C-alpha cells in the first residue's frame, strides 16, 4: 500500500495508540470529578495542555480542547462574531478556506453579518495590499487559513497579522492551522493571531481531538452549553486519553519536523520529476513551489480525477481528487475554481499528500502506475 493521502488523515503513531489505550483503560477518571482519581486525570490533562502549548510557544491558559479541527473552526468563527456583534458586522475571509470555515461564514451571513471574500491569484495567494484596503473600522473578524488543504499554498499570515493589528486593533484574527501544525514552525509570540485552530489526526494523533488557541483577553462566546468544562469555554466531558495522545503525537511531530520535511521534499521532488519525465505534456503542477512540501496538487489532461483515483486504488495507491466526476456542474473544488485553473486541467486534479514515512520508491512506483493509467484510460 502507498498512502499519499496524509492531508485527509494520517496513521497514528504506534506510541500514540498505545498511550490512548493505556490511559482509556487505567486512567478513566473524569478530570472534573472531586475525588483523587479524577484529579489524576486532571493532572494528565494539564500536563498535555502544557506540552501542546509549548509546541506553539503559547501559555497553557490559552489552550482549549475541542472535538477536532471542525469544532475549533466553528467555535472560533461563530463564537467571536457573536461576542463582537456590537462592534460591527463585517468579516473578511479568503474563498479557499476549508468547508468548516466557509459553511460557518454562510451561517453568519444568513444571520445578517457581512462576509467579504479576499481574492486569490493563480497560485492561491491572497494579496496583503487588498487586505489592508478592505479592512474597516467595523471589521470584527479576519479569517485566513495558514496552509490550504488542497494545494499547500502558505498564506502570509504573519504579515497579515501586522496589517490587521495596525489597521484595527479590535479586529479578531483567526488562523486555521489544521494543515500547518507540525509541518511549519508556529510561534504565537510572533504571530499576531488571536485565535488558531488545530487537529490531532493530521499529525499522527487520534481522531476526535482538536484544540483552539485563544489569546489571553480575546472575547468569545461559547457555542456548547453544558457543564462549563475548559474554563466555561467548551462544555462536555474532556477526552483525557485522546488529548494525551494528541500531546504525544505533537511533541514527536514537532520535534522531528525538519527531518520529516527534508524527507517529504525528496519524495515530492521525485514524484514531480518522474511525472515530468514520463508525461511532460500531460501534467500541470498547481501547487506553488514555495508551498507546503507535504501537499502536491497536480492536474492531468484528458482523464477525470475520479477515474485516476479509482485506477490508482486498484494498485493500492491512495490519493484524493480535487473534483468529483459527475455530469452535475459545480463538481470542481472551490479552491481549484478560485485559482482559475483552465477547464481541461481542472477536471483531472489529484492531490498527493505526504508524511515523513513515505519514500522515494513509493513516489517512483506511483508515477509508473500513473503513466499506465494515462495510457490506458484516456478516452
Amino acid at each position, binding site marked *: 500500500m502507498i498512502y499519499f493521502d496524509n492531508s485527509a488523515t494520517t496513521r497514528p503513531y504506534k506510541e500514540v495508540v498505545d498511550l490512548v489505550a493505556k490511559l482509556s483503560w487505567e486512567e478513566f477518571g473524569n478530570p472534573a470529578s472531586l475525588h483523587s482519581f479524577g484529579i489524576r486525570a486532571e493532572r494528565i490533562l494539564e500536563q498535555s495542555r502544557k506540552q501542546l502549548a509549548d509546541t506553539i510557544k503559547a501559555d497553557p491558559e490559552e489552550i482549549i480542547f475541542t472535538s477536532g479541527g471542525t469544532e475549533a473552526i466553528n467555535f472560533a468563527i461563530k463564537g467571536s462574531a457573536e461576542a463582537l456583534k456590537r462592534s460591527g458586522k463585517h468579516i473578511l475571509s479568503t474563498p479557499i478556506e476549508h468547508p468548516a470555515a466557509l459553511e460557518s461564514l454562510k451561517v453568519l451571513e444568513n444571520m445578517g453579518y457581512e462576509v467579504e471574500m479576499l481574492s486569490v491569484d493563480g497560485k492561491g495567494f491572497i494579496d496583503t495590499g487588498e487586505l489592508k484596503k478592505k479592512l474597516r473600522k467595523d471589521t470584527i473578524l479576519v479569517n485566513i487559513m495558514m496552509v490550504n488543504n488542497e494545494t499547500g499554498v502558505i498564506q502570509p499570515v504573519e504579515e497579515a497579522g501586522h496589517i490587521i493589528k495596525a489597521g484595527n486593533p479590535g479586529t479578531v484574527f483567526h488562523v486555521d492551522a489544521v494543515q500547518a501544525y507540525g509541518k511549519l514552525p508556529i510561534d504565537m509570540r510572533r504571530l499576531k493571531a488571536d485565535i488558531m485552530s488545530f487537529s490531532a489526526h493530521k499529525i499522527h494523533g487520534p481522531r476526535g481531538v482538536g484544540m483552539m488557541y485563544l489569546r489571553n483577553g480575546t472575547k468569545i462566546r461559547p457555542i456548547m452549553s453544558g457543564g462549563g468544562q475548559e474554563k466555561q469555554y467548551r462544555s462536555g466531558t474532556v477526552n483525557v486519553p485522546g488529548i494525551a495522545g494528541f500531546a504525544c503525537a505533537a511533541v514527536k511531530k514537532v520535534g522531528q519536523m525538519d527531518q520529516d520535511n527534508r524527507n517529504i521534499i525528496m519524495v515530492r521532488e521525485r514524484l514531480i520529476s518522474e511525472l515530468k519525465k514520463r508525461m511532460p505534456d500531460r501534467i500541470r503542477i498547481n501547487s506553488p513551489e514555495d508551498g507546503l512540501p507535504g501537499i502536491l496538487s497536480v492536474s492531468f489532461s484528458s482523464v*477525470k480525477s*475520479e*477515474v*485516476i*483515483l*479509482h*485506477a*490508482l*486504488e*486498484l494498485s493500492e495507491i491512495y490519493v484524493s481528487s480535487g473534483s*468529483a*466526476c*459527475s*455530469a*452535475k456542474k459545480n463538481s470542481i473544488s472551490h479552491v481549484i475554481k478560485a485559482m482559475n485553473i483552465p477547464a481541461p486541467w481542472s477536471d483531472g486534479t489529484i492531490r498527493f499528500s505526504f508524511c515523513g514515512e513515505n519514500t522515494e520508491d513509493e513516489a517512483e512506483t506511483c508515477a509508473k502506475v500513473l503513466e499506465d*493509467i494515462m495510457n490506458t*484510460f484516456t*478516452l
Partner: protein
Amino acid sequence: MSEKVILVRYEEIFLKRSNRNMFENRLIRNIRQRLDNLGDVRVTCSQSRIYVECRDEDFDLTEAVERLKKVFGIASVSIVSRVPTDYETIKASAVGVVADLISRYEYKSFKVETKRADKSFPMNSPQISADVGAHILKNFPSLKVDVKNPDFILYIEVRESTYLYSEIIPAAKGLPTGTGGRATLLLSGGIDSPVAGWMIAKRGVEVDAVYFHSPPYTSERAREKVIRLCEILSEWTMGMRLYVVPFTEIQMAIHQKCPQEYLTIIMRRYMMKIAEQIAQNDGSLALITGEAIGQVASQTMESMLVTNSAVTLPVYRPLIGMDKNEVVNIAKHIGTYDTSILPYEDCCTLFVARHPATRPSLEKTLDFESVLDEEQMIAKAMEQAETIII
C-alpha cells in the same frame, strides 16, 4: 392459559386447487426459513391458515411480524391470543386482550366480531359477540360499543381452540418464493431495477442479479451500494445470488471502435448477452430489466427492439408502462429508495454520448458491432465474474 400465536392468512393460493399442497408447503418452508434464527418456532397449517407458535419465553414477536410482512404469499398476519374453547375462559381472555389494547392506544369505542367454525359450540356467533361485548362494557366503563365506526374490533374465532385479536396487519401478498421458477435481473444501482426485480419476485420467482462493474470508471462504493440493494431485496426474495461482471474492457473497446451515438445501445446489448449466459448457466428462464418506455434514450421502443434482439430468453420489463413516481413509491415501500439515491455517480457517464441515437436501427447496430471480438470479450468477462451469495 392464553398463549401468543401469530396467525398467517393467505388468499391467492386458494386459486391453485391442484397445486395447493405445493404452494402451502413452500410457504410454510419459507416462513420457517425467515424466522429461523429468532428462536424455537413451530409452523403448522390447519383449515387454510398458518399458525406460528413460539416456544421461547423471550421470542421477539414484533420482529417476527416484521419479517413475515415481507414473505410473499402471505396476505395478512395477526398476533392472536389462543385459549381453549371454553366460554368462561374466552370471556376472561377477552378482558385481558382489551386491557392490553387500551393501555397502548386511546381507544374509546369497539365492537366484537365472532366467527364460529366449531359448530358444536353451544352459542352462535351473534350471541357470543353480544355477550362478550356486554362483559367488556362491564369491565371497562370508559368504553362504548359502536358497530358502525368503532376504534377497534375484537375478533373472536371459535375453532378447536379459540383465537382473539384486534389488529390485521397487511403483508406482502403475491405467491410463495420458489413456486415460480428463476429469473435474472440486470441490476444497476438506480431506482428502477430493484423495483423490477421485486415485482417479479412477488410472483413467486427466485431472482438473481447481475451487476456490471467498470473500475476505475465506477467506484468501489457503487459496488457496495449494489450489494446493499441486494441485501434489502433479499429480505423479500429469500436470498439471492449477485454476479459482479467486470465490464471496463468491453466498454473501452466499444468506445474505441463504435460510433458515439451507438455506444449506449451496443453496451446494453452486451449486458443482455452476458446476463443471458449467466441465466442459462443457472437454469433461469427469463431476464428482468427496469426499463420503462421513453424514460431515457436507451429505453425508446426502437432501442428496446435492438437490445431485445441480442438475446433469445424472454425479457420481463414489469415497469414498462409505469411513471417515475409510481416506481419511486414502490421503491420506498420495499426499502430500496434511500440506498438507490445515494450519490455515487460513476464516471460511466463518460461513456454516454452527448446525443445518443434514440431511433437506432438493428441493421446498423449489427454492422457497427461486427468489428468487436464478441466471443472472446464475453468469455473473459464471464470467467472473471464474481459471485456473491446474499
